């Protein structure tokens, strides 16, 4: 395949999950050896065998999964590999902090050099990643799915940085699944499918629908088709819940909400406002400090994850590699993680593997998981297909409440369409759905009601006409309800 990137341009790279975008960029950055072909940089043919080579040329990369070292400080992460040292290899801490501060000032990337990366929000971590690349003198910056974890405001901030860089003559390769972003920031667009370039175009010459069709190879419905909700009784109630985070700070602060049968409650919010802790507390994975959680009229505040599962809770966790699937186990086992010890998958303590396989074969078909078969290990699937496995499992448990955290993060448009349709179908079948997403578009297109979480509390719950992109954005940023209402009326 061929790809040409010009200086001063933002070049967007599109493609469905597993199309080979990350792989290609890893080749450019010297992490993977290409089997054949050549690379030219500034017109000259170059050999990039290692990240050192790439760095030497002025190529920087911000990986999809951040390449930061969580327990180290920002400054350490930035200088790592290109340290300024005094005698005997002793790091000049003051100099490196100063450099980081200067860089962040110059490019408007505010970070505290002494903060530990593990204590930073994802958005700030990304700034550190970009700083790292700039510190190394990157002129070609590769951003692999940089916005999948950012808020709209953070995304806008990132775009400004990107535009600033290209204005200075640098080039940016921008990988994403979000067509809207492509249209707003890209100068050129390349679409990949199965390791090949299928189209090269510009935002002016194409539309999101065109791009989606090119990526997936068929027309894609970019909007979710759904009828009005018919809410029933509340199935999930959270009363005055308080939860601590890992650092023993109050992350959820007396929060209350309720989700009714047959509706989707979207929980919008900037990452790090207590969503993770709230979801874990509802799932029984994190102890609560005070308050109550009620599931289908049963109090489950202190119940084990298992009891909640049995009480009818389905949970699509935000971090699928960490919590959703067991990469080394076959798809079939992953599809019964919550049910493996119950009929029809077990009799007594004996597992009935034939049943497990049949069940898997069926779900693979009905959820369109692209796999060789039930016995393939989950780790061999692309991210989008892994996510489908999780969704299939959680829905096949027969839940009455579905808690979906970032259900389409990093998933391509084709799979997003599929997962969204599943969620709406479940709602229509009478499930109470709690959708936790930092993806505002997702919340807007799926939710029947929107709750905005800010600093561990519900800032507002919006219904019907109140659901408005700007208003939610402001609430997410911490504006008070009345101010927002005022703006809303004024606007």
């Amino acid at each position, binding site marked *: 395949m061929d790809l040409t990137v010009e200086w001063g341009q933002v070049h967007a790279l599109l493609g469905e999950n597993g199309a080979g975008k990350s792989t290609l960029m890893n080749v450019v950055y010297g992490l993977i050896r290409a089997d054949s072909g050549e690379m030219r940089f500034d017109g000259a043919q170059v050999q990039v065998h290692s990240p050192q080579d790439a760095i030497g040329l002025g190529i920087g990369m911000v990986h999809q999964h951040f390449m930061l070292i969580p327990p180290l400080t920002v400054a350490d992460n930035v200088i790592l590999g290109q340290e300024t040292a005094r005698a005997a290899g002793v790091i000049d801490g003051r100099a490196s902090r100063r450099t980081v501060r200067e860089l962040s000032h110059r490019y408007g990337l505010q970070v505290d050099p002494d903060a530990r990366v593990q204590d930073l929000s994802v958005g700030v971590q990304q700034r550190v990643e970009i700083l790292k690349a700039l510190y190394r003198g990157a002129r070609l910056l590769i951003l692999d799915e940089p916005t999948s974890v950012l808020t709209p405001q953070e995304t806008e901030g990132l775009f400004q940085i990107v535009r600033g860089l290209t204005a200075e003559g640098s080039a940016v390769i921008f990988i994403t699944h979000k067509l809207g972003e492509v249209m707003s920031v890209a100068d050129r667009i390349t679409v990949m499918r199965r390791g090949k370039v299928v189209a090269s175009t510009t935002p002016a010459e194409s539309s999101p629908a065109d791009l989606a069709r090119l990526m997936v190879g068929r027309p894609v419905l970019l909007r979710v088709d759904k009828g009005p909700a018919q809410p029933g009784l509340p199935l999930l109630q959270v009363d005055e819940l308080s939860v601590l985070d890992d650092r023993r700070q109050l992350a959820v602060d007396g929060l209350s909400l309720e989700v009714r049968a047959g509706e989707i409650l979207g929980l919008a919010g900037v990452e790090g406002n207590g969503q993770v802790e709230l979801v874990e507390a509802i*799932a029984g*994975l994190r102890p609560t400090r005070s308050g109550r959680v009620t599931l289908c009229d049963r109090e489950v505040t202190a119940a*084990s*994850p*298992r009891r*909640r*599962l049995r009480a009818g809770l389905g*949970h699509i*966790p935000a971090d699928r590699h*960490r*919590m*959703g*699937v*067991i*990469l*080394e*186990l076959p798809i079939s*086992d992953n599809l019964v*993680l*919550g049910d*493996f*010890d119950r009929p029809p998958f*077990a009799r007594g*303590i*004996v*597992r009935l*593997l034939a049943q497990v396989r049949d069940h898997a074969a069926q779900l693979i078909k009905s959820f369109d998981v692209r796999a060789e078969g039930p016995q393939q290990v989950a780790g061999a699937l692309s991210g989008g297909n892994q996510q489908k496995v999780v969704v299939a499992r959680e829905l096949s448990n027969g839940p009455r409440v579905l808690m979906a955290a970032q259900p389409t993060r990093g998933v391509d448009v084709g799979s997003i369409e599929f997962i969204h349709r599943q969620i709406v179908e479940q709602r229509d079948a009478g499930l109470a759905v709690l959708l936790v997403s930092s993806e505002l578009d997702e919340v807007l297109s799926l939710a029947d009601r929107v709750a905005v979480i800010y600093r561990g509390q519900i800032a507002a719950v919006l219904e019907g006409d109140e659901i408005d992109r700007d208003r939610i954005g402001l609430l997410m940023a911490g504006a008070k309800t009345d101010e927002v209402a005022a703006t809303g009326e004024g606007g």
Partner: protein
Amino acid sequence: MPLVAILLGFVVAGVAVAITGADPIQAYLGLFQGAFTNKHAFTESLIASVPYVFLGLAVATGFRAGLFNIGADGQFYLGALGGVFVGFSIHGLPGVVHIPLAILAGIACGAVYGGLPGFLKARFGAHEVITTIMLNYIAYSLSDYLINRGPLGDPHSSAPKTPFIDPSAQLPIIFADSRLHLGLVLALLAVPLIWFLIERTTIGFRIRAVGLNPEAARSSGISVARTMVLVMAISGGLAGLAGADEVLGVSHFMPPSFSIGYGFDAIAVALLARSNPWGILPAAFLFGAMRNGAGFMQLQTQVSADMISIVQATVIMFVAAPVIVRWLLRLREVPAESLQITQPEGVGAAPKT
């Protein structure tokens, strides 16, 4: 492939022996005779393999849950104490009752002693590598206290030992004119049983899931803490069974220094078997036969018994890294393949509960 590895292991150890000036061919001849062809040799090799089977299964089971049980030695002691106590203190039972009772006592003692570090990890996050090592030393002292003229000591002997167990508690000999006892049958049963437990039951699934990804296991309703206690108890129970089996089948009383590092050999057996229950059988037999044959080998050739340690180490190395074998034999470049036996992570990794 394992056969090539074993062969290479013997070659390497042979070189070391040759350096000391001894004749490796003669040594191996002696080893072979001592392990297989001499009178009693084969049955003695089988007898020596039995504890390795149980102990190898014990360590391997822990590995499957991502737990590193270095405490099999201590659990072995506890199992022996439990078995010998029931064996000598209860009288008048028929063998069919006495033997199972004594074995169960051994398993129970081992399970409790193994479950303890599991509990400490699940409840307090105490690393099992630390606690099991410490519990080994405690077990040595405890058993010495009990048998060295202590509560379990033989009142009729000045020696630090327990009384003999009743004949009704002795494992029957299953092969005439030998010491080969029922323990071999138990070992042969334990392997498929543990395989079935791990691969085909819900308990085994829990163990594997926790071993592979504790957080995913937990979020889908598996209690990681309970599984840790359970798997350590199973592991300890197997080690305890090994101890009880040695007392009831071989020694019939418990002397001091009952195990010289059995628990550490067990790690090697489990690794050699790649934590696969079926693999435990040949691995245990290799260890048992070599240990048994070593006596005769050195009677013939004066080569130190420690030589078998060199063989064992190199065999494990080659089995664990088939790449090295291919590389040595110049069998075509192959991509480095990694074999994580102690999945998912090794000692020293953060405890996840």
